[in-house]
């Protein structure tokens, strides 16, 4: 029997009386780009945080490449090949941008994979180059704009050379032109290959996003969440036509 790449079963998380994620289960393949959409408070970010081990689920399990990852520490999960970005960007504000990325390059996974790259800075620069902010490498992270902080988040995640990339609103706060660029970068990243001295495995991705217009272009499967449960799962075309999705986003029609 072939193992699926990522398999989630019965995942549940309560915050006090609120059930943020309710018995979610799905599986995805190595070559997929998965979009995760839903109204605010649907549990999208919570789901990502459960996968990366930042939050501990109350029930359920997550298997990544045949290994159970619930209960492992976040850094273990990252070193297994799952990288994530944060919705509200969390840079190391008083450090130069390149140092932000060097922290990721210092993780055991990145150190093991880039043995032939002698200089850490070179690798960090290539991650910044990929994200398109290499010209500001020496600036403090606190001087960056919202859009560039998003890029920094992506650069940090890419620097660990992940197999599965969890992007939490990569287009949030970006202008339409910047969003186009970011979408192109993400698609290019998914194809895999080399970016300078950085090797991309062509990671599978889970993307949480509200800008559906751009999301539809880069994903090949969408899961819709509402009140912590999956209400639809299918290709972008199917999702747009699904009446339950329209209801969740726009409310029920009276007429």
């Amino acid at each position: 029997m072939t193992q699926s790449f990522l398999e989630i079963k019965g995942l549940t998380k309560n915050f006090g009386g609120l059930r943020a994620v309710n018995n979610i289960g799905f599986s995805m393949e190595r070559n997929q780009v998965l979009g995760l959409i839903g109204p605010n408070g649907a549990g999208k970010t919570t789901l990502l945080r459960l996968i990366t081990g930042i939050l501990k689920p109350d029930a359920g399990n997550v298997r990544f490449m045949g290994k159970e990852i619930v209960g492992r520490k976040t850094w273990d999960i990252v070193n297994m090949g799952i990288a994530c970005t944060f919705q509200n960007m969390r840079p190391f504000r008083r450090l130069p941008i390149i140092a932000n990325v060097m922290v990721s390059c210092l993780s055991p996974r990145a150190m093991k994979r880039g043995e032939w790259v002698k200089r850490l800075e070179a690798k960090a620069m290539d991650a910044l180059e990929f994200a398109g902010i290499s010209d500001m490498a020496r600036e403090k992270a606190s001087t960056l704009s919202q859009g560039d902080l998003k890029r920094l988040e992506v650069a940090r995640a890419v620097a660990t050379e992940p197999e599965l990339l969890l992007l939490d609103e990569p287009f949030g706060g970006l202008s339409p032109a910047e969003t186009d660029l970011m979408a192109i970068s993400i698609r290019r990243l998914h194809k895999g290959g080399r970016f300078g001295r950085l090797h991309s495995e062509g990671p599978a991705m889970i993307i949480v996003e509200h800008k559906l217009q751009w999301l539809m272009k880069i994903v090949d499967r969408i899961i819709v969440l509402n009140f912590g449960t999956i209400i639809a799962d299918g290709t972008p075309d199917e999702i747009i036509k699904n009446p339950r999705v329209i209801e969740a986003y726009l409310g029920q029609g009276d007429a």
Partner: protein
Amino acid sequence: MDLFLFYLRKLFTIIKKEVFVLPSRIVVVLFFILLLLLPVFTKDLYLLRIFTLTSIFAILAASWDLLSGFTGQMNFGHALFFGVGAYSAALLNKYAGIPPWGTIPLGALGAVLSGLIIGIPCLRLRGTYLALTTLAFPIILMGIVFALPDLTGGELGISGIARLAGSRVTDYYITVVVMLGLCTIMWKITDSNTGIIFHAIREDELAVRASGINTTRYKLLAFCLSGFFAGISGGLYAHFMRIAGPSTLEVSMSFQVVIWAIFGGIVTIYGPVGAVFILFPLLEFLRFWQELRMLMFAVVVLLILLYMPDGLFRWLRDKIEKECPRCKIRNVAMRHTCRVCTAQLD
């Protein structure tokens, strides 16, 4: 002979190109030279004693900066490491008869152990909670010390332990060389890859974890390193004063370290060291004004903190040097163009 000349010329080139370009570096070199030459100029035992103690406390302040400044693990009980270092050195010397060169490193290892012991329960705490918890540990140890008067001498402490060396001048040289060496090592640590992770943990621990770094290991490492350096200073203190008493564990000692570090500027290493070299002698020389001594001390510290919130030495450094907006290399404030990339400064 040629080889010697070659290295001599190389040394001169390094000094010319790396040291003489920035006033702060010249000051550091002058500081090293002056400290090493002080006994040549004066044989005043009182002065040498003050500077020996200053050097010992400089190690302590710098080690606090390594833990609380760089890694952001607010430690208000730094006297614990100092006291553990002092007491272990004293006990080992008195009961096992080990000479100072053996007891001081062993005492430092004892402090590393205490760093692990307090580090593990404190891993989940941060900020104010961590500060308050760490505050308790030296007080607990002091209770243990008082509870075992046969072993620790109770309130009188352990006296009559071996001297650091034969003469005051030798004592001075040992502490100063150890201080300069350890501070250089600490500065190198903060400048290394480990230092980057320490910085990052201070900024945002969760994001460091999400970058695949085992933050527990690095936080414990910071506790151990800091404990090691503080333990050495405790051992030196015990052997220099020839007594290890409960005063090494007092709350005032912990806060003294914090005051020194903040006065000089945290996250610098050189800041706390410089601050000790100003504040400790100042407190001694104010002795002629016995009643107002602490008041004057408080006024000086408060003024500095009010007008230079980043610390005295940060402030001074920003006055005499400025950063190139393009390549981020520091230049003398008088220059109009960057010395490396020739960009316009301001």
